[in-house]
C-alpha cells in the first residue's frame, strides 16, 4: 500500500493534469462562448471569390472550398461538438443510472436481466450501433445524440452497478434497510450521492469518447447537417482538399484534439485526486 501511494505521488500530480486540461478545454470553451455573440465572419456565408485563401491576417485559419472563413466555422463548430457530447453524456448518464443502480442493488434476476441487455448493446462495436441507429431514424443532431446516449448507457450502468454493489454492503445502507427505508429511497438518496465521485471521471471520459464517436459519424456523413458543422464534420469536409489546403485539416483537428485531450487530462486529474482522497 505504502509504496503504491508513493509511486502515485511521484507521478505528475493531479494539479498538473488539471491545469493542462483546463487550459486545453478552456480554449475550446472560450471559442464556443465567443461564437455565441461574435464571429469574425458569418460562418456559413460563402464567397466563391475567396476560395482556399491561405491563413493570413484577415482569415487567420484560412478559407475553405466555399470561401467561408475557417476561424468562424471552427468557432461555431465548437457549439455542436460541445452540445452533442454534453447532451449525449447526459442521456447515457440518466439511462445508465436508472438501469445500473437497481441492477446492483437488487441483484439476482433484476441484475441478470439488466446486465444481459447492457451486454447485448455492448456486443455491437459502438460505432456500428450508432451508425445503424442513425440510419434507421435518419441523420439529425437529435438522433445522433440519442444514438450515442444509447451506446454509452451500458458503460455508465456498469459503473453504477459496481459502485452500488460495493456501497450496498456498507453498514449505513444495512442500517437504512433495518430502519425500514424503502428501496427506491435508499437508491436515490442513500446510494446515488455516494456514486457521484465514481461517476464524475466516467462522465468526463464519456464526453471525450462521445466526441470521438461523433466525429467518426460525421466523417461518414451521419452527424451534423450542412452548412452547420462540428469539428468532425469540418474534418471530413476538409479531407477532399487536404493536399491543396492542409489548413482545412490542421485547425479543426487541433481543436478536436484540444477538446478531447483537455477532457482526458481533467478526468486523469480527477481520478488521481479522488483516489488519493479516498485513502
Amino acid at each position, binding site marked *: 500500500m505504502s509504496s503504491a501511494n508513493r509511486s502515485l505521488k511521484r507521478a505528475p500530480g493531479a494539479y498538473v493534469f488539471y491545469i493542462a486540461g483546463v487550459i486545453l478545454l478552456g480554449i475550446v470553451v472560450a471559442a464556443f462562448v465567443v461564437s455565441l455573440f461574435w464571429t469574425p465572419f458569418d460562418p*456559413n*456565408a*460563402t464567397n*466563391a*471569390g475567396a*476560395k482556399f485563401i491561405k491563413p493570413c491576417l484577415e482569415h487567420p485559419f484560412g478559407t475553405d*472550398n*466555399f*470561401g467561408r472563413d475557417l476561424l468562424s466555422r471552427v468557432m461555431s463548430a465548437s457549439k455542436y461538438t460541445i452540445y452533442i457530447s454534453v447532451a449525449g453524456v447526459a442521456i447515457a448518464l440518466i439511462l445508465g443510472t436508472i438501469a445500473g443502480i437497481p441492477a446492483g442493488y437488487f441483484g439476482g434476476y433484476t441484475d441478470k436481466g439488466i446486465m444481459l441487455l447492457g451486454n447485448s448493446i455492448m456486443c455491437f462495436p459502438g460505432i456500428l450501433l450508432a451508425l445503424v441507429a442513425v*440510419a434507421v431514424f*435518419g*441523420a*439529425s443532431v437529435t438522433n445522433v445524440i440519442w444514438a450515442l446516449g444509447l451506446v454509452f448507457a451500458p458503460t455508465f450502468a456498469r459503473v453504477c452497478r459496481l459502485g452500488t454493489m460495493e456501497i450496498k454492503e456498507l453498514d449505513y445502507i444495512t442500517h437504512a434497510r433495518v430502519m425500514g427505508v424503502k428501496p427506491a429511497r435508499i437508491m436515490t438518496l442513500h446510494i446515488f450521492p455516494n456514486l457521484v465521485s465514481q461517476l464524475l471521471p466516467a462522465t468526463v471520459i464519456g464526453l471525450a469518447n462521445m466526441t470521438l464517436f461523433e466525429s467518426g459519424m460525421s*466523417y*461518414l*456523413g*451521419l452527424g451534423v*447537417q*450542412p*452548412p452547420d458543422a462540428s469539428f468532425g464534420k469540418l474534418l*471530413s*469536409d476538409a*479531407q*477532399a*482538399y*487536404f*493536399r*491543396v489546403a492542409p489548413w482545412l485539416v490542421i485547425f479543426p483537428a487541433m481543436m478536436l484534439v484540444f477538446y478531447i485531450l483537455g477532457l482526458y487530462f481533467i478526468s486523469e486529474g480527477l481520478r488521481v485526486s479522488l483516489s488519493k482522497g479516498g485513502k
Partner: protein
Amino acid sequence: MKHLITKSVISVMALSLMATSFAGCNKKPADANNNAVVGITQEPGIFDPHTVVAAGDEEIIFNVYEGLVKFDKDGKLNPCLATDYKISEDASVYTFTIRTGVKFHDGSDLDANDVVYSLKRAAGLLESQDGTALVSELDSIKEVKATDDGKVEVTLEAGNTELLSFFTTGIIPEGYDNCQAAPVGTGPFKFESYNPGQSVILVKNDNYWQKGLPYLDKVTFKVCADMDAGLTELAAGSIDIFPYLSADRARQLDSAKYNILSNGSNMVQIFALNNKVEPLNNLKVRQAINYAINRTDIISVTMDGAGVELTTAMSPAMGSFYDKSLDGTFKQDIEKAKALMAEAGYENGFNITCTVPSSYLIHVNTAVELASELKAIGINMEIKQVDWATWLDTVYSNRQYETTVIALTSAYAPYDVVSRYQTSASGNFINYSNSEVDKLLTDIPLTADEKTRTDLYHKVLKHLTDDACSVYIQDPTTITAVSTRLEGYYVYPMYVQDMSQVKLVQK
C-alpha cells in the same frame, strides 16, 4: 429477382460518396500486356440489359450487349445488329433488318427469334411476364414479330417518332434468362467475372462481327471507393482510364502519363422547386430565386469551374434541340430578385427546407452554396440530408419536399429529357403543370418532320424557362484521364465506356 425499373429515372453523377484523400504508392505501372483497367466509383450490381438501372452498370455492359442500333461517340444512332430499319408513316411500325453472321458469346448465331424474344422481354410481353415493361419506354410496344424474310416488325400502340434510341436495348439469345449471373450478348467483350467490391473483368470476343475489333484482350473495371481513391490508383499506375474526375484533381496528374479529356455529360443539375407548395407555387418567387443565384459561383465551388451554365431543362450536348436563345436569361440580379420577392408579398423572406441525398457531395455542396446565396433575398434555407433510399421514397415518389438538388440524366434522346414535364408524368416530381406544354409534349412524338420537331422542343424549353419551373444550374463536365499508353478512347455524351476502339499506342 426482377428489377422492374425504368432506365431513364434518375441516375446521378458518379461523384464521390465521401471525399477522402490518398497518397501515392509505388506499384509498378500496369504492364504492357494487351489490356486496360478502368476505374469506376459505383459498385456494379446488375448485368441484365433489361433490368439495369444504374448508370454505373450501363457503362460496363455497353461492351457486352448490343442493340439493334447503337450510339457512336457523337451521339448519333447507327445500325448495329440491324443492318437497316424503316419507320412507317404514322411512326407506329418499326421494321428492322437483322444482321447475319453475328454470333452470341455462347457460340449460337443471332437470328430474328432472338431479337423478338429480347424485345418482348424488355417490353414485358413474354407469357411468363405480367405485362409490365422492363424497359418502361418500350411499354408502348404492342407486338413484336419476325417476318418471313428474317426481318423483325415492331408495332406500337400509338405513333412515336422518338422511340428509335431505345432500340439500343441489348439483344440476348432466345429463351435466355440468366443474364444477371452469366451475361451473354453479342458485344465486343465477353463477361468473365464479377468480384463484389473489387472488379468486373471482361475478355475479348474473338468472334465479334466487326472484324478487327476489339483491340484489347482484357478489360478490368476496378471499383474505387471514390474519386480520390481513383486518383491514387491513377498515380500509382494501377488503372489506365478514370472518368468522372473533378477539375482540381485532374490538374494534379502528370501530363506525360495521362491525357485529360473533357466533355459535357448530358446531365442537368437542377435546384428543384416543388411547384405545388407555398410559397414556391408563386411564379414571382421562383423567378426571384432564379435571379438571386449565381451559377458561375456554384460551378466554381462545386465543380471547380468545370461545368456549363444552364437556364433551361436541356443540356447543350443535345445539339440542335437545345435552344441557344435562352442562354443568359437569369443573370444574377439581386435587386430584381428582391423586387420580385416584394411583389410576391415576401419582402421579409421565408424559411424553406432543401432535402438532398447525402451520398452525392456535389448536390450537398450546391445546396450549401445556394443556401448562402439565397440569404441575400431573405430566404433561409435549411439543408436536410437523407440517404438515397429515403430521397427516392419521400422526394421523388411521394413528392413530399419543398426543394431539392439533383442531377437529371436521361437517355440520349431529347424527348426523354422533356417528357417529365408533362403534368401527369411519373417523373414530374416538381409538380409542374402547364397545359400548353402538355399539348406540345403530346404532339412531338407524332411529328415526323425533324425541323418542326426541333421547333416544338424549343417552345417547350421556352415555356419551362418562362415559368421558372425550377432553377437549372449546370451541365457538369465529365473529365476523364486516359493513360498515354492507350489511344482510341472517346468520351461519349451518354454514360458509357466504349472500350472496343481502345488500343495500345504503337511505338
